[in-house]
């Protein structure tokens, strides 16, 4: 009887294997936990294999890892077309039907999703130095993923996308600009009728934290990689006390922009993120908590 639960993918796993067969996390290492409770996601070992259905995926490389699929007959994965690294000519490639093409294009999201059908081999990789994260999803489990972090998912995982509703407006009466610090839309993946595998790619290192009911954290909006569907998110604005070094700025335009994530559930952040934008005054914003020091 297998009683081991992988500490990273939270699925029953095989304690005798060197790596978790579902998510590739090494089994024989100690947790690397910071004093404040962030757990470092261990990189998937070079050439580790993950099983899904009758197929498997092998992670090759450590700097910009590629995910190499050996797809069985009747099984498929889907992905954004720009992450395709190579394919066997035998692998059937086709595009996936998508709703809301116009909105996706206007929001800068990938317009075309491709499907690769087995039997055959195919490899995918993103173009940042970082890590591949494997998230096995159980039947009915749903997860939110920041846009452009998605690498691929197995065919039985349903793909949807939703407005993040995290925004603020800067500018003056003549010209205004709406900013989406977490992206305008997020990807939502749900294991529809049976377990599936979701692969993400995150630049830099990845850290995970489990939030208790009502526990909250402030994080850089662009550093969020994924979160459980139970975790709530909204904008948080902080205005540091003006100590005279920026006297031409009022308390209202010199600010830090965070998102507040509130448990229960899991959140993951990446160590490479976009730097905050220029500090123009915020004229309007989505629901936010505020603090002035």
């Amino acid at each position, binding site marked *: 009887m297998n009683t081991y639960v992988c500490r990273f993918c939270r699925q029953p796993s095989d304690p005798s294997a060197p790596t978790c067969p579902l998510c590739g996390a090494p089994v024989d290492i100690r947790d690397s936990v910071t004093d404040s409770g962030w757990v470092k996601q261990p990189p998937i070992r*070079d*050439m580790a*294999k993950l099983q899904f259905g009758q197929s498997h995926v*092998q992670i*090759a*490389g*450590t*700097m*910009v*890892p*590629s995910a*190499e699929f*050996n797809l069985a007959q009747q099984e498929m994965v889907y992905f954004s*077309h*720009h*992450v*395709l*690294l*190579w*394919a*066997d*000519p035998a692998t059937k*490639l086709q*595009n996936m*039907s*998508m709703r809301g*093409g*116009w909105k996706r*294009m206007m929001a800068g999201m*990938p*317009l*075309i999703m*491709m499907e690769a059908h087995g039997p055959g*081999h195919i*490899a995918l*990789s*993103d*173009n*940042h*130095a970082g890590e591949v994260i494997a998230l096995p999803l159980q039947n009915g489990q749903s997860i939110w993923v920041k846009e*452009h972090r998605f690498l691929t998912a197995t065919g039985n995982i349903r793909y949807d996308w939703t407005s993040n509703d995290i925004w603020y407006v800067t500018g003056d009466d003549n010209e205004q600009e709406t900013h989406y610090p977490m992206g305008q839309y997020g990807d939502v993946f749900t294991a529809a009728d049976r377990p599936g595998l979701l692969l993400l790619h995150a630049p830099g290192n990845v850290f995970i934290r489990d939030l208790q009911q009502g526990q909250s954290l402030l994080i850089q909006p662009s550093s969020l990689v994924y979160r459980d569907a139970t975790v709530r998110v909204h904008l948080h604005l902080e205005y540091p006390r003006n100590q005279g070094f920026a006297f031409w700025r009022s308390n209202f335009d010199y600010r830090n922009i965070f998102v507040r994530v509130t448990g229960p559930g899991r959140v993951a952040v990446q160590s490479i993120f976009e730097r905050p934008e220029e500090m123009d005054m915020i004229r309007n914003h989505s629901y936010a908590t505020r603090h002035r020091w």
Partner: protein
Amino acid sequence: MCGWCRANNQPEATSCVTCGAPLDVRDKVSDSGWRESPRLRDMTELRFSQSTCQVEGELVPVAEIALAPQDGVYFEHHVLLWKDESVPLSSLKTNGPRRSLGGMPHIVSVANGPGRIAFSRDAPGELVVLPLHPGMELDVREHAFLLASHSITYSFIRIKGLANALHGGNGMWMDRFVTSNQPGLLILHGNGNVLQRTLGAGEKILIEPGAFLYKDSSVTLQTKQIQLKSGMLGHHNMYLAEMTGPGRVGIQSMYVHHGSGE
């Protein structure tokens, strides 16, 4: 024998003296036959002609060359990291205007020994050390070669076919390195991780053109079009490079997608 470059080494050696590949670790080969290029250990030293090359760093590695008298290396001028004052620089005779039109560096510089000189590119990745035996021809994606030893003949070839040039994502030219009766050393920089596969005669593989790094000249390249429909927004064409063996193909896992720029 080194599994990467096939050079013979002393039994007690821990890294190959010709290409620097660690000899005391197993080759990393995926199920479909892609082999990771050897991850060179920090400060690994290798030899070519009478000179040595030391590889320093792991994230953006540097190749530091100690050139013997009579030896030389050539390189694109912007990869030069530092050099001894005494090392003379000159330029290689190329068809400059033609190169410029193709977006390749106008000048290929040459450094001659004796003295020390170091090179690096500006992206996280790996150095791929390719010792060339006499009578070899290797084609390399433009802007990917770091340096080559003086015994290697350098030329550049135009990628044939309008579809290849316009949609191939490899640019219009490839660097070609040829050895005649002398061996030589070629070092490339691959972005991210580098993988190599040897194709049998007639065996084909489809590759994202931005990921292509190098190939034996016996491997042919042909652009293949895949049409993708996106509902009311029409259709998009996707282009992949179809490589046909026999020979080696090298790819890099980090690249700029030629179609989307992502």
